[in-house]
């Protein structure tokens, strides 16, 4: 379980107003986007599986604050937040959720399968833990090419029990791959709590068996995540190999849209929302530190709402993909733009 966090309300002196505002804005965008996605799902505009990130916003926003151009990221099927946080357009993500031509995958991927070569976002993977060796492979390519890029490989506490994670840990440390393994421990693998799936006292601690350093981080505190992320990234960029961050977080919604969430109490969820909400934490810091006024934050809320509403409108109006699209993108004739070979 998460260590007792320090009071998130005292903003550290070394964090600027602009930084705080950016984190607040980025987290709020994810929250409002996800709420809207849930709404569109309810209306039947989004089909299939849809896994919302609400409650976990501080994890990806804190880590993106540590990334530089060229760094890569890859995650599981709970991926909408990661895409927004790395700068992908809300319109393209929402239109992919509705299965339209304007989506990042032209409507052919869906909620769990989106990518952006431009933003170095490598998906969106629907098989639990498959993204872990893939992420190490992205890092392998950067090491092979001799640059100092780092790959953020996100996975959950559920994925942490898959065997391929440990094969990957072993090779990543053996070859000093520049990969930050980010375990988003939201405490439930679908309906199974961590306590019911392992007797390990910590998930990051399993890295020790392979010689990989790591630590547990309060994932409801964006500044704590950022501080730990800086340390992990510095380790990787220095060529010292991988680093594990076990980020203790919480998902407010069900595993997917059809999860009645009977495995935990309503009180447990409400307590998290009331006491530890990552967005409220930053909001209070902004207000108590006199970094922003209520009116400024209200204006920001409206700006976010407009972006999200615009994305929803776009996602409804964008046409379904042409039937010809059924038969495209099965084989590549040439390497896509921006590949290492073409740039070589």
């Amino acid at each position, binding site marked *: 379980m998460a260590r007792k966090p320090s009071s998130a309300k005292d903003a550290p002196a070394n964090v600027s107003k602009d930084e705080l505002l950016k984190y607040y804005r980025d987290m709020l965008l994810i929250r409002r986007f996800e709420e809207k996605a849930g709404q569109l799902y309810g209306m039947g505009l989004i089909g299939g599986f849809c896994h919302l990130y609400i409650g976990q916003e501080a994890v990806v926003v804190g880590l993106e604050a540590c990334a530089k151009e060229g760094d890569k990221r890859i995650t599981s099927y709970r991926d909408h937040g990661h895409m927004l946080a790395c700068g992908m357009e809300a319109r393209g993500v929402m239109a992919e959720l509705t299965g339209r031509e304007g989506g990042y995958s032209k409507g052919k991927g869906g909620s769990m*399968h989106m990518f952006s*070569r431009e933003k170095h976002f490598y998906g969106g993977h629907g098989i639990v833990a*498959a993204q872990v060796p893939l992420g190490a*492979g992205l890092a392998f390519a*950067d090491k092979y090419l001799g640059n100092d890029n780092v790959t953020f490989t996100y996975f959950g506490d559920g994925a942490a029990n898959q065997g391929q994670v440990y*094969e990957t840990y072993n090779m990543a440390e053996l070859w000093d791959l520049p990969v930050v393994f980010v375990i988003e421990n939201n405490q439930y693998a679908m309906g199974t709590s961590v306590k019911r799936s392992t007797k390990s006292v910590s998930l990051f601690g399993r890295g020790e068996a392979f010689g990989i350093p790591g630590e547990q981080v309060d994932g409801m505190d964006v500044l704590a995540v950022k501080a730990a992320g800086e340390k992990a990234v510095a380790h990787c960029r220095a060529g010292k190999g991988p680093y594990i961050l076990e980020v203790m977080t919480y998902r407010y919604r069900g595993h997917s849209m059809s999860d009645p969430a009977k495995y935990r109490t309503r009180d447990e969820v409400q307590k998290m929302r009331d006491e530890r909400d990552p967005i409220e934490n930053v909001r209070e810091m902004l207000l108590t530190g006199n970094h922003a006024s209520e009116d400024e934050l209200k204006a920001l809320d409206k700006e976010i709402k407009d972006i999200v509403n615009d994305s929803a409108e776009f996602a409804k109006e964008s046409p379904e993909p042409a039937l*010809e699209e059924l038969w495209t*993108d*099965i084989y590549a004739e040439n390497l896509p733009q921006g590949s290492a070979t073409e740039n070589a």
Partner: protein
Amino acid sequence: MATEILMPALSPTMEEGTLAKWLKKEGDAVKSGDIIAEIETDKATMEFEAVDEGILGKILIEEGTQGVAVNTPIAVLVEEGESADDVKTETAEKAPAQVASPSTKEGPDDKGQPGKSAVEAVKTPEPDRSPDYPEGTKMKTMTVREALREAMAEEMERDETVFLMGEEVGEYQGAYKISQGLLDKFGPRRVVDTPISEIGFAGIGTGAALAGLRPIVEFMTFNFAMQAIDHIINSAAKTLYMSGGQMGCPIVFRGPNGAAARVGAQHSQDYAAWYAAIPGLKVVMPYTAADAKGLMKTAIRDANPVIFLENEILYGRSFEVPDLPDFTIPFGKAAIARKGSDVTIVSFGIGMAHALEAASKLAEDGIEAEVIDLRTLRPIDYGTVIESVKKTNRCITVEEGFPVGAIGNHLSAYIMENAFDYLDAPVINCTGKDVPMPYAANLEKHALITAAEVVEAARKVTYR
């Protein structure tokens, strides 16, 4: 502005549900995230959260109502001072009707591929019968093993992004000596020894390919690739499609496939039909050393994931290979290994050894078999097969794999659909037996396809 609250879809398959219970009553203030009702779906009872803020102005569907269709207005949310009658009807927010598109234009990648539609006529393309290399080319004799090694070495020289990874490929010099000498030549950066972690290194290789490198991943045998098949299929083959064309995966998965000798059921299986079933993969299964070399070079240069199925028994066999500085063979081009007019024998990989042996025996009795080596199983050169069947009016297929869902089954169906009127006899599929591979020498021999069985099938279809 008053807005309607609609009956939500709360599972991928829900079309209607029961409004089990209202947890808010008319006049109650509602915040985003508040649970306003309980709804029974086809799977479970779900709590329904409010998205917008406001006051529950009016309940339109009473609790206990069953069979409420998704998107039916169930309540009206109003703002302070508004009446529920101000509702803005927004029931038009449904998915648009299916886009009508009468065009069924062929994509560039489905030439001759079956299955576009059950009734749509598939046009078999004209076969490419050009020679693989110019007449008079100087030839050299080499084994399949040497040919594969030479192909990899040439491509590694040519392209810095090509590297080899797998178990024992480096210091051990290759479990089957395919990579012998490559570590000395290219160093440990490009010849990477892995621990015994098939799913791990298949995933790492696939990730490196997504990032733009061109990995060659060696499986000590394809039997072990079953541990890694999720990455081959779900990660490598499907990502280009799922990304709308953004993420190519130029990777070669290679290694020996099929039965060796006396290694038992877990180490003796032909996976040709498994991989050939997957759109997004290309599948190669050569027989000769020349094909092994030319196709391996093409595989490494291909922008897609390629499954390259080798054979342990063939590694040591020698063939003539054109002595050219850059010899490649395109995918989807079968070879006519022997010309004939009486029966078409279609095979690939080690099946070709049985097919050619059978053809020699048949010739002694005056039956001239045309033997086609498919060489690649995805794409398949349907044109060459159909053209030959139209000439001989008879066809048998030969492969080592299991009989159910075999490549031969697929070819039989294709021939029936596209050359039915030309057939003078049913197509016969010669395959391995429908049993796990036994260890005992006599049983193993009977489990495998033999030239004698091919001869027998040929006699049956030629009625001789």
